[in-house]
């Protein structure tokens, strides 16, 4: 039995709010913790709206080099989820 790891990149999606400046306002999952699909990862403020970014995969979530109050743009990498897949040889 062998275990391999792959990563799922978490990026800022297009919120379709062209004029808004985006800021990371909170991490909702700590780096290195296990997350399930639909768990909240972080909170982004886009002016009139605050948006929770949810996990789309199960795995271990790692923060990218982004801090709270950093200004972001669409597509910015905010973290990675390490996916664990197990298979027999």
């Amino acid at each position, binding site marked *: 039995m062998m275990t391999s790891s792959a990563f799922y990149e978490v990026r800022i999606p297009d*919120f379709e709010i062209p*004029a808004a400046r985006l800021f990371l306002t909170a991490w909702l999952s700590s780096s290195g913790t296990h997350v399930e699909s*639909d768990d909240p990862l972080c909170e982004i403020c886009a002016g*009139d*709206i*605050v*948006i*929770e970014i949810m996990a789309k995969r199960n795995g271990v979530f790692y923060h990218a080099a982004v801090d709270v109050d950093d200004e972001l743009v669409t597509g910015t990498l905010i973290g990675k989820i390490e996916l664990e897949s197990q298979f027999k040889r």
Partner: protein
Amino acid sequence: MFSCEKSKMAFFMLGRVGLNKYLRLQQQILETQSYASDRIQVLLCEHDPIISVGRMGSHAHIRLHSDRMKAGTLKSVWVARGGGCILHRPGQLAIYPLIPMNWYQVSPGKVLRMVRQAVMEALRELSYTPLKTDLDFNIWGRTGLLGVTAMAVQRGVSCFGTYLNVEPEMRDYGFVDSVTRIPVDQSRRTMSSLLSERRQVVRMAEVRSAMVQSFADVFECDDYHMHTGHPMLRSVTG
């Protein structure tokens, strides 16, 4: 165009409810509704006097005397929504559209645009035309800011919403800056009201009724349900 052929909507008239109690109700709805639901819930209510401070706000935007705040006659509360400081009072209509965004495949930007469009069309139905501005998602009139839109997306569902000043007592509004950016032809960051704008009686019941019809139209719903109160409100304390 809304992405699904027909949406399912329910409107809940909560009457007057404290902001903190509403926030607990909203949280309870989000925890139970979440992804599985295809129903849009729109909650309409008025709040007791309180100032809510969103992620873009700070206490520097509240210019009320600190002794009054300390005396507890007017409290402030931090809330997890966009936008800045908003003074709530009876006479201000709070409109909370809880939209399961994944089900309807809508982006946060589209939700903001649709909510603004619904509020604007309701006001036109009441024979009032707000000013046109693409600066933000707020509602502006000649006398200033009539409605503030401040929302959040939690668990894939939109929450919070628009606060429309219909006929609140205007005391203290001049001391709370609700927006950071203003259109070029405006000079104040504080809120005005529909009553000041129209200079004639505006009935809250008419505004609520226009709002229901307008939201149903904008969200393309022919068959909606109206309720007084909310079934979960009884289990929410104080």
